[in-house]
């Protein structure tokens, strides 16, 4: 079974440019999450999709970030325009079901390393 994949693995862009990150979850996983880790700090939750719907986007830092999951399969996270503080590692995770006393483990992708210069 293929795991969560993310593209690109690395991205270096200039301040003001646009970058789009892609995440392909494990097939059949309705739940998709985006996280970000900035320079050795904690991994911060960004948002959670259930199929194509945004369940919780409370972690999105500002309106420069736009996440979509059309058709409930892969997801994209667009940063426009990028700022220096957006640099970090962006992780995507997926799970089959969410919540409950035996919460499904989230499977993480390898991350996209974004550097904004």
């Amino acid at each position: 079974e293929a795991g969560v994949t993310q593209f690109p693995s690395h991205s270096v862009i200039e301040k003001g440019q646009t970058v789009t990150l892609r995440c392909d979850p494990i097939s059949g996983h309705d739940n998709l999450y985006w996280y970000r880790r900035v320079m050795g700090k904690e991994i911060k939750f960004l948002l959670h999709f259930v199929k194509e719907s945004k369940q919780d986007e409370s972690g999105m830092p500002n309106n420069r970030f736009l996440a979509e999951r059309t058709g409930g399969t892969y997801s994209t996270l667009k940063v426009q325009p990028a700022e220096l503080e957006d640099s970090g590692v962006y992780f995507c995770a997926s799970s089959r079901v969410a919540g409950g006393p035996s919460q499904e483990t989230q499977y993480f992708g390898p991350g996209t390393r974004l550097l904004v210069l």
Partner: protein
Amino acid sequence: DQQVKQNSPSLSVQEGRISILNCDYTNSMFDYFLWYKKYPAEGPTFLISISSIKDKNEDGRFTVFLNKSAKHLSLHIVPSQPGDSAVYFCAASAGVFNDMRFGAGTRLTVKP
């Protein structure tokens, strides 16, 4: 506002000894706790979890202890092996939507 805290950025232990990684949380609504292990250039991988209805969960060499009154959990690795060297993240979630909050991580180094 960091709701999950791992106050030790690094830990070094000798092979065969016990590794104890600590985690504190502030949100009393958290009811599910997880530990993830991360190798360089890879995403975090699930290691072990515990529900708030338990105070201990064991899986092989890994045991997680939960002290709800102190809002503290710990991960014990016995015996530690060099392959355990990685960054360990503590995570917690509340409610039904499984949105996790992570600590900053502790880098464990197990010396041969």
